[in-house]
């Protein structure tokens, strides 16, 4: 049965060379997926930058160069964030599957085949690829791939599932944890979120010379804010309070700023509606959203 996929990537001041580097591998992956039944592959870029990342000429060149896939470009004329951007792109989708992928991700040649195959199990709602060179340390079942949540650096979901859960919660999450929240809502539907280690995607992450993460200032702020909002939304106000207190007592400037933002939301009644009161879906383990195999 023919399968159609819409890959969507939200770009923000993304270098065209990074886009081309990614596209060369995406086009090859789409080509190799044809015998596997992927008859239609559409790649949509949603541009949240202040000015367009791609000119008409550049888009035209890319379309000619990678003619085996359909390339679309939507300049948002505003920064919708990751969640908002994906929702806007998905709203226009007609494909069977939506592949959410960072614009700089370079897929393995057989990525699509490896991501689609698990959906033969009707109970699976979302499949996540393994990111390399730095694998995410969250735990997954080594027999089934079941995991708490899927990173949307590279993950695929049926369009139907995407629509049933109403897409990403763009009102609450701007840049981080939108995928955690999305995954948990997929699981609320009774569907499984699985990690498929044979599906690999290169995501250009680097380490400090000491071997640790090097988060940018915006990453530090949005991940701090998302931690507060996620714990609140998923009915773990006890953790929210603990994090608030920790940020106030020991936090850096970004974490303290996140506390201010959270309290403002609270005062203005803009906090999300709480869910999962029975704590059946969400996992909060040692400050993470799944058990981790090791600390990075």
């Amino acid at each position: 049965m023919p399968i159609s996929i819409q890959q969507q990537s939200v770009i923000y001041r993304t270098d065209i060379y990074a886009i081309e580097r990614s596209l060369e591998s995406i086009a090859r992956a789409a080509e190799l997926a044809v015998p596997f039944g992927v008859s239609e592959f559409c790649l949509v870029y949603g541009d949240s930058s202040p000015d367009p990342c791609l000119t008409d000429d550049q888009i035209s060149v890319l379309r000619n160069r990678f003619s085996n896939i359909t390339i679309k470009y939507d300049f948002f004329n505003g920064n919708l964030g990751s969640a908002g951007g994906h929702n806007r792109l998905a709203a226009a989708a007609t494909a069977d599957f939506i592949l959410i992928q960072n614009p700089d991700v370079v897929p393995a040649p057989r990525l699509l085949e490896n991501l689609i195959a698990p959906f033969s199990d009707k109970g699976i709602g979302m499949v996540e690829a393994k990111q390399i060179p730095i694998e995410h340390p969250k735990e997954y079942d080594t027999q089934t791939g079941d995991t708490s949540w899927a990173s949307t650096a590279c993950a695929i979901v049926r369009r139907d599932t995407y629509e049933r859960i109403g897409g990403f919660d763009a009102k609450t999450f701007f840049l981080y944890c939108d995928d955690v929240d999305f995954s948990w809502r997929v699981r609320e539907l009774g569907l499984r979120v699985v990690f498929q280690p044979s599906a690999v995607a290169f995501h250009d992450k680097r380490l400090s010379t000491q071997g640790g993460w090097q988060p940018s200032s915006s990453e530090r702020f949005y991940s701090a804010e998302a931690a507060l909002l996620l714990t609140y939304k998923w009915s773990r106000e006890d953790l929210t309070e603990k994090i608030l207190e920790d940020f106030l007592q020991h936090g850096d400037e970004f974490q303290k700023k996140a506390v201010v933002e959270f309290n403002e939301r609270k005062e203005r009644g803009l906090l999300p509606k709480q869910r999962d009161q029975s704590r059946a879906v969400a996992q909060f383990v040692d400050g993470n959203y799944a058990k981790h195999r090791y600390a990075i």
Partner: protein
Amino acid sequence: MITNPFNEYKNEYAFDNVYGHLIEILKRNLDTSTQSGAVHLDIGCGYGAIAEHITGEVGRIYVGIDANKSGLKSLKDRGFETHEHFLESQEGALSFFERVIGDRKLGSISMLDTLEHLPNGLSILKAIATLASKHRAMVAISVPNIQHRDIGFKLALGSIAYTDAGLLDHTHVMMYDYDHLDRVLRHAGLRICDQNHVRVNHSDQFFPRDHPVLQSATTIRAFLKYIRAGVNDQDQINQFVVAALPCEPITGPTFETVHDVDRPFLSIVTRTQGKRIHTLVEYFTCLAGQVCRDFEVFVVGHRLSLERQIAIEQVIEDLPLWLKDKTKLIRVDHGNRTHPLNVGFAQANGRYIAIHDDDDIPMGHWVDSFRKLAIDNDGALLRCVSSLQNVETVSIRGRDGVRSIGKAAPYPSEFDFIQHLSGNYSPNNTLAFPRGVFHHLNMRFDESLTTTEDWDYIMRVASVVGVASSPEITGTYQWWETGNSRAMHTDNEWTLNMAWIQEKLDSRPILIPAGTVRKILSLWERAEHVNFLRSEIDRNRNEAVDQQNLLREIDDIINSTSWKLSAPMRWPKRMLGARSSRLTDYLGLSVQQLQETRRRLLSSRSWRATRPMRAVARLFKVPPN
């Protein structure tokens, strides 16, 4: 042809000089079983030292040609046919040779130590080749070797001396090494088919005898000898002696045209046995994500079954076109795990060559970090950092993947030569070797090693070109819980290889990088301090034993029966304020103080007075106390 007024080249025949070597090479390539009646033409014959041997041992009619009348006269006097000719042009020479041969059959030609005197050497060789081709004759040539180490070592240190004859004869107009000789012969239409070079440890250029690079016990000579001997086997060749046959001449210049070769920055040599195809997929996906694409990849498949070969070919076939075009699979069906590295390095075109095994992971700036490091450190061994991570293979829905099972721990951020003498802290994926060490210095991986061949190579290369380090973490060295190289070889094998590598390093002079002296001094000071502490501990321990023994002796005295019985003798002193002796009074005293106390007790009047009593007690074997 340049003539030499200072030397007539009147040398005797010897089995181990150029004449003997020429006869030997002719004998082993020609049919000497019958007197063929064919002519041997000796061009530039001089005094014809080989003439009798050509006749007697090779079975040819000797004919000598030279411009030197004295040499020709000598030959003529010995009954040989001679012709006087000055070699000037190709046509003139050929025409002269043909006239000399006439209707006779030409069997072989020699030209000994003559070519280097000819300004028009190629033209004369072409004439010889034409003649040889017409008669299907073999040509034997000898020329002095400009690469003899006696010349090279002195030249490297600012010394060169022409002589009246020999390797640097002042009348030489062209210098030859083997490659140049081969190239000139091929341009002339001659192809080398055999070699019988003359080797000498000390050439005529072995002077002045007090030059440090010539004196046998100097460190610098030992170092240069080691490096030079590794490059090729021409370091002790005095004269090249070759046999050649007519062939199609090649065209173009006989000399090298200096130009920059368009090379990729990096050649990546990837060993694989095709056992973990899923890791090869991950590796190539990371290569597809490199920000710097100035590289080529040689996948060296070692002892592949057909099934595994097909699987690897499929991985390469799947790659995006730009990467597929840069990637080549080389099959190697013999040798141990080290052999594929030599094969891969030999193929490499890059300015640098890196080893990246099929189960490790490069980060997006892996190539680019080497490129950046090379900008200011061109030619040095480049070293970035890798982190070590434990991994395993998992299979979900029948598809294999890699699962990390531990935190990645970075290796040291800087290459420390001294530290690396004790072991390897630089996995393969952290290094890029300058191509020159392999392609110009001929430094190859030691195939006698079954493990740690990379460490051995790193140290040998580092000790010649030095190392430039970057603290950037650019890759992950994946450690498999099962099927790792540690488990595939016995502990004994690892230990033996380690000992062999260290022995090799210790057996010859090596260059150490700037800054190492201070490190060695620091280690020396640390060792001295440790030795001092150790001696202090020993001294204190010995002192404590002495103190204990002395206290025991004092205790024996002051608790003895005789001491107690003689107490009244000490009362007067006590009345004057002296205390009776108690052991606790002596605790904490030094060895010296305790010795003094013992001496005082033993020499006291009361102890001396009771000596007979102790003697009696000993007689009756009563315990003395």
